[in-house]
């Protein structure tokens, strides 16, 4: 079963780099792909794989560092956007399944961590979010290898 980890974020913006950091830690163990947006590139990254883990930051107002495990269905409700700069993951996944059902992963798990600071420059996550990197890496490994 071909598996990919897709890390989404900006590598120079503190907690926004969370997804990138997780994917980097799994590089060499699994196939990985780094993305900075969630538009058509997300579809490109997923096609041809049987299983995918997507890792990203999220800003919902809960305690920073909180890890949420989501499915594509959790993101699908929302299909509007006002520019190509905000084509969001839910729309991209919806489109991917509509156009390329046979080539899209049968299983997609989305790990999202609540960010504390995704607006300031920095090459490392804040300590709380940094701690969540290992947790998500271990969860993905455990999911795959037991």
């Amino acid at each position, binding site marked *: 079963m071909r598996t990919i980890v897709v890390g989404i974020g900006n590598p120079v913006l503190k907690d926004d780099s969370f997804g990138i950091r997780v994917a980097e830690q799994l590089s060499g163990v699994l196939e990985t792909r780094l993305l900075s947006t969630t538009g058509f590139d997300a579809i490109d990254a997923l096609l041809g794989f049987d299983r995918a883990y997507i890792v990203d930051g999220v800003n919902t107002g809960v305690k920073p560092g909180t890890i949420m495990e989501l499915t594509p269905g959790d993101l699908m409700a929302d299909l509007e956007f006002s520019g190509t*700069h905000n084509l969001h993951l839910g729309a991209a996944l919806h489109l991917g399944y509509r156009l390329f059902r046979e080539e899209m992963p049968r299983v997609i798990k989305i790990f999202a961590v609540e960010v504390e600071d995704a607006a300031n420059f920095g090459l490392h996550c804040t300590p709380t979010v940094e701690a969540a990197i290992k947790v998500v890496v271990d969860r993905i490994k455990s999911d795959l290898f037991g």
Partner: protein
Amino acid sequence: MKRIEINPMTRLEGHGKISIFLDDTGNVENAFFQTVELRGYERFLRGMPIEEVPRTVSTICGVCRGVHYTASVKAADSVYNVEPTPTARKIRELFLNAHYVEDHCAILYALGFPDFVAGPTASPAVRNLIGLIEIVGVETGRIVLKKRRSAVRILEMLGGRPIHPVAALPGGWSKRVTEEERQEILALSQDLVELGQMTLQVFDDVVLKNKGYMELVLGDIYKVVCNYAGTVDDQNRVQYYDGTQRIINSKGEEIGRFQGKGYLDFIAERVLPWSYLKMPYLKKIGWQGVEDGEASSLYCVGPLARFNVGSGYDTPLAQEAYLKMREALGKDPVHNILVYHWARAVELLNAAEKVRQLAGDESITSDDIRAPLGEAVGEGVGIIEAVRGILIHHYKTDKRGIVEEANLIVATTHNKGPINVAVRRAAQSLIKDGKVDEGILNMVEMAYRPYDICLACATHTLPGRQPVQIDIYDSQGRNYQTLKNF
């Protein structure tokens, strides 16, 4: 006074928001669009070696990934007083044109066509990318995305990574193109040319043949009369990687031309009390307010500006499409902003043809990909036509090439004045006697969507979208209605 606010589009570099003010009778008195600033990155770049800057600024935006990269490496050439080798220049140009195809494709199919295919007043439930696919057919959607992916593959081959490329160096490019890669790119370029032809056909079938849509495209609601700036070659043909920046007035008369640091002679910035961002205007005309018309000092950039400034395109199929546009629109500058999408479709084909031309040139596989650096001269300006318009990267460095100051002027900043006028005009046309409904949100958004504003999307966080909200306030400042799309 009532106040309507389209808000928020919060991003890394500030806030993009629209506020619409109504008078006591419920009609629009004024509208303001506040846009992105890049001061955060400009500060972050200080202290960084200029050769590191391209890789860093490519993270400003995941959509505009190729353009900040290309403009900054051109600035790095200037800092080190070096001209890239002919081979490196061809590779850079190939890279930028592949980026054009990919980006224009995304804008047109995700943003431009849904309004026309589903109709501008259609329910948001169908007036979106998914709705577009349901109308034009799954097979068509599949073909479009597959052909677009050919452009991404070229970017990956040339840049070393699909996102945030790593191959550019001052004076050249770090990775040569092998003959095998050239053959692959040449094969992929056929996909891109077909995508360009197909896109123009969609525009033709859906928009040009629809009388109602053409009335909207050529009507007064979405019209901004201003000056235009774009890059041309010595025959005044539209260029993307390099050339001379030409400025014309609203009647098509040339105001001037500049290259490099010469932009400072033409572009001034006005501080406005309602925005933390300065508004660019033409220095030679002088500040005339946020107004359009023949006396305006506002100018716009991007596909429509390039169409107006240039006398055509430098590839045969795009030139043919250009002549068809001119036949329909006349020889004078076109001020109807929905024509941006038409020009965008022509440019998609033009860029695809250029990819094919460049990949067809066997000399692009030469190993002469880097020129020796000169002494750092302490300053460098890199200007390209980004997909959304003129992009200026200006750096001052010390003698070792360490950045001391950075100034980045992006297309959305150049367009700030015209976007303000466009939003105000649309709001004035559509909001009457205080009547605002869901359809208004889209019709007002249509006034800024042709510019495809860049809001430094690289900080996104899930769900990765910009919520848009209209808050309506009565004359006492009380909120009595809110419309939002999230």
